[in-house]
């Protein structure tokens, strides 16, 4: 087996003809890591007729492309096994992928196939004395863990950990087309169809003010409190995953990794602790106000204004003050 090359790989996530914004964050950081390790940055692009996407990956020294019908839509089987076949051939120093709904599937399966270490929920990755160090975020952000990873490891990096700008480049990188591995003929899981999000009553990606509720809302019967506040602010109510999973609001109102990415003028987070998958969908809001009983809640790390309090004490007072302000206007 050949010695590991100093290649840093970024798995290119794409859907419906567009590269995921998160990929540019990885390319930006990957660029710096490759430089520190004295190697080159390789973007690994798997898809069908996806060569055009390579033009947007100019931050990479090389785009390694595999074009195959089995890779058209992401499946862990197809993409992880192809990545594993490429990795066995090229021995990358480090593989970066997103801690996204595709990335977490890919990273774990790939790590198992290659029998290499993996780090989940990576918030930072760097090089110190030639060693790769990663910081993983645990327990919804209550703990951090610094780990040292050997060559060949797979890291699943949280969205928003690095700015995307550094990974965006208009330069056209060289593209190396790799042959599809034989195993693709035997890929077992098959995408039948894509399901677009159901048209909701409200498109939360277009509403200027969002009142977001999390576990702290406690019961469905408490939702009208948030709706009253949203109405006063001319906005809509949205939610984090636990509220949607309870069936209290439709899927179209979910903000986060698997839900919608929103950028309203105001995002008022009520009883939301701020798990990474939620922050991924709202951290770019213009003004974030968070109310939570836990002073260590990660939501306060992205909020502009924070209140440590029970939302059921703040909500009525806020509704009263807003009504008063509107009457005075």
């Amino acid at each position, binding site marked *: 087996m050949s010695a590991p090359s100093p290649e840093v790989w970024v798995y290119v996530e794409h859907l419906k003809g567009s590269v995921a914004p998160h990929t540019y964050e990885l390319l930006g950081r990957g660029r710096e890591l490759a430089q520190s390790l004295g190697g080159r940055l390789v973007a690994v692009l798997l898809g069908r007729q996806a060569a055009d996407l390579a033009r947007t990956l100019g931050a990479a020294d090389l785009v390694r492309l595999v074009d195959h019908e089995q890779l058209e839509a992401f499946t862990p089987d197809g993409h992880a096994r192809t990545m594993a076949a490429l990795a066995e051939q090229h021995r990358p120093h480090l593989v970066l992928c997103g801690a996204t*709904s595709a990335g*977490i599937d890919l*990273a774990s399966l790939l790590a198992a196939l290659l029998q290499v270490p993996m*780090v*989940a929920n990576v918030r930072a990755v760097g090089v110190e004395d030639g060693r790769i160090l990663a910081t993983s975020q645990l327990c919804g952000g209550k703990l951090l*863990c*610094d780990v*040292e990873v050997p060559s060949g490891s797979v890291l699943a990096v949280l969205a928003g950990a690095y700015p995307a700008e550094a990974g965006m480049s208009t330069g056209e990188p060289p593209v190396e087309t790799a042959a599809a591995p034989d195993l693709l003929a035997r890929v077992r899981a098959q995408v039948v169809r894509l399901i*677009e999000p159901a048209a909701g009553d409200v498109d939360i990606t277009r509403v200027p003010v969002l009142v977001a509720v999390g576990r702290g809302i406690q019961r469905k019967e408490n939702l009208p409190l948030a709706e009253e506040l949203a109405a006063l602010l001319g906005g809509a109510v949205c939610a984090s995953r636990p509220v949607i999973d309870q069936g209290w609001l439709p899927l179209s109102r979910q903000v986060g990794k698997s839900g919608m990415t929103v950028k309203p003028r105001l995002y008022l987070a009520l009883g939301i602790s701020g798990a990474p998958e939620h922050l991924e969908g709202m951290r770019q809001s213009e003004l974030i106000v968070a109310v939570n009983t836990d002073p260590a809640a990660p939501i306060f*790390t992205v909020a502009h204004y924070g209140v440590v309090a029970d939302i059921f004490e703040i909500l009525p007072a806020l509704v009263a003050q807003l009504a008063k302000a509107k009457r005075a206007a």
Partner: protein
Amino acid sequence: MKIAVLLTMVPDPVEELEIDPSGTALDTQWLRYVLSESDDHALEQALLLKERHGAQVTALALDYGDVDQTLFTALAKGADEAVKIAPAPEGSVTRHEAAAIFAAILRRRPADLVLTGVQAINDLDGHLAGLLAGLLDLPYVGVTRSVEPAPDGTVLVQKEYPGGVAAEISVPLPAVIGVISAPQPPRYVPVARIREVMRTRSIGTEALPAIGAQPVPAIRRLYKPTAAGGATMLAGTPEEVARELVAVLVDRGVLR
């Protein structure tokens, strides 16, 4: 259809978490463990499949924390069998190690469908479902929100992609599925029912298998993050805080 549901106990997220003197692990002396949230959804998904289409559901868990209570709860909810892998492994178990242990058990007692949560709050070196599928060389799809059997003997799963998009994926059996949420919230079971099950049913045991060294990262330090200090914190009575917030909204032009 034989369904194995893998249940993992994780630190209770509402408890205060303390680091042990080594600085590399949680202090487990007073640690309270609860069932991982997405595993609870995996169990619900299995029970829905059993109710709608018929299946034999076995809940499997490593001997951690109050796992007996969790396994009896699974029985009370409708699982046919609950099995504890014992004795408890020494020290904490990495995800690679847990995957190797479950893989060994599932080779002894194969299932048509293995369901488990796609992630846990203390995932450090990976996610169990994907690691397990790799070790068992089984088809795998994770981050799913529904699993339904198809007439051709496969299962149709809905996998979440970003932006509210999902994919319907056909997966031949046997397979491993990483569940993020079931089509309905995990069912509630009264304490009285769990107590009754504790009196009338028993938990099976599988011997903890020996596994080789697993490829995991070396932990240097576990610690609590320092507050980022980014947010301006407002304090006072609810009325005072509300007044300040309204002033901010007016100042920012959000409230007109």
